[in-house]
């Protein structure tokens, strides 16, 4: 069996795949990557099946070695990557030979990064997925964050070439679009206007479960306690602290706070990637528009994945490795 060894690691790195499906009725959160398109691109760049598991890191990566040659790719945002000190680039794949140390530094102007390894991280699936769910200690590597000294199995890789993006993967810089409801009627009209007009600051209170936004108080005239009902990714809960809690990949499946709006699926990874201390604004769209945007984005992502290009065998870009 082949392994990836964790030499150093940032404080928040977990094994993730596309998450758990079909068990929300049993209280099992989907989990999965915070920025699924970036994760999918990383897998495709190393020739992996979309269902393969990779590593998700917050802020800073770590250093890694492997016991057999693999391909790897780092996505999510701009980041310093070194192979035994020689610079490599995100959003394209490289060979990582055994004995060479891959070092991934700090992400610039984003939060979540992805490391895909050809063959995928081959930990045992739990309830149909290799994704780590930290809160319940399920899946991934013993249900927890990775630590220096951890050794993870990697699966058999199909033979592939090193790839890069043939067309850019872009995200809009527009406000975070939301569909109002399901409990927007708990909030007075002027408070709903405040929600849509004012800026909110991404607070340091953020994890894979929820992201807290500071800003003007959002008070519910209908009260901040409801009989618990279902949540979905992007639900914006408003507890009595009046702060906004946006539920993310590792959210609980039900909750007892009113939800003023739901972030459109296309903009949820973008919200996840907003650096702490930055501001966000919301813009209201209809359910129909949010569906249209999601369908269009899926098509755009399929196009990016279908149009990856082979990297030249000899790499003459300055600062890049050639093997």
């Amino acid at each position, binding site marked *: 069996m082949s392994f990836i060894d964790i030499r150093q690691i940032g404080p928040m790195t977990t094994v993730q795949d596309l998450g758990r*499906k*079909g*068990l*929300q*009725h*049993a*209280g*099992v959160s989907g989990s999965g990557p915070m920025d699924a398109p970036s994760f999918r691109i990383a897998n495709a760049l190393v020739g992996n099946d979309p269902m393969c598991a990779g590593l998700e890191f917050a802020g800073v990566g770590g250093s890694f070695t492997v016991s057999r040659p693999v391909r790897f790719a780092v996505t999510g945002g701009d980041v310093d990557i070194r192979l035994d000190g020689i610079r490599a680039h995100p959003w394209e794949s490289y060979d990582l030979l055994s004995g060479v140390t891959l070092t991934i530094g700090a992400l610039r102007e984003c939060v979540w990064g992805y490391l895909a390894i050809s063959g995928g991280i081959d930990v045992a699936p*739990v*309830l149909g997925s290799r994704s780590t769910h930290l*809160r*319940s*200690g*399920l899946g991934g590597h013993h249900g927890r964050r990775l630590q220096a000294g951890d050794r993870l199995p990697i699966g058999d890789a199909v033979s592939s070439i090193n790839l890069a993006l043939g067309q850019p993967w872009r995200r809009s810089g527009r406000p975070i679009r939301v*569909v109002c*409801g*399901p*409990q927007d*009627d708990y909030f007075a009209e002027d408070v709903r206007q405040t929600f849509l007009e004012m800026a909110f600051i991404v607070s340091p209170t953020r994890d894979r479960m929820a992201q807290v936004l500071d800003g003007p108080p959002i008070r519910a005239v*209908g009260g901040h306690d*409801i*009989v*618990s*009902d*279902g*949540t*979905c*990714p*992007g*639900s914006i809960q408003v507890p009595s602290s009046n702060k906004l809690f946006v539920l993310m990949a590792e959210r*609980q*499946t*039900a*909750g007892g706070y009113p*939800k003023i709006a*739901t*972030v*459109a*699926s296309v903009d949820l990874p973008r919200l996840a990637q907003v650096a702490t201390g930055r501001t966000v604004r919301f813009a209201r769209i209809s*359910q*129909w528009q*949010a*569906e249209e*945007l*999601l*369908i269009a984005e*899926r098509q755009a992502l399929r196009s990016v994945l279908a149009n990856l290009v082979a990297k030249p065998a000899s790499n003459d870009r300055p600062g890049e490795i050639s093997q």
Partner: protein
Amino acid sequence: MVKMFPRIHACGDSALSVELCDTIDEAVSERVIALAQNLADAPVNGVEELVPTYRSLMVFYDPETVRGHSLAMTLRLRLDALVVGANHVRRFHVPVVYGGTMGMDLQELADMKDLTVSQLIELHSSAEYRVFMIGFAPGFAYLGGLPEILHTPRLATPRQRIEASAIGIGGKQASINSVPGPSGWRFLGRTPLRLFDPARAEPFLLKAGDRVTFRPVSEDEAETLDRAIAAGRMTGEAVPQ
């Protein structure tokens, strides 16, 4: 605020909430479960997951296959024609060792209610509970039917770690912890049963609509059950109808 039910709300672009009521009501819960069963028996193209809660059904869908507005119309038609039949009810006896390290609030709760510990145990174990929903954590069961005298507010400061299988009370609800974690509920004891075991063929013991009664057992009997469960010889105490 006068509300008309049912209401179908958009929850973003991939989910609808079919809301039948905004309070806790057994008949409503039966209807939520019946709608979920109806959609499971005769699936609607594009519907991916159904999450029954106390008073609403969350319907997750793929907008590339079915659009929310059209799905909402289908769901209204299903609701209008819905027959809540006499479903087969699963009943479970849950053995409980009252007190001990996992029943740290038993004495205090009895004192608060001006009851003896044995009166409190008698009250807790004589009621029949209904599983209103599974949620919050894997396999966590929200149980309705707690005798009113035992209704107790949650702790102001939650405890950092309560073990799986702890038997608790929170507000008007009873619970059986399914995974370890922080909790502001009050705890009376523990059960050898495991509500959630990812290694088991059926990882989740309970589902919405099930009935539960608690059966007091001695520490000795609990240890026998612990061993049987650890050896995989039993998963629950279902009572056949």
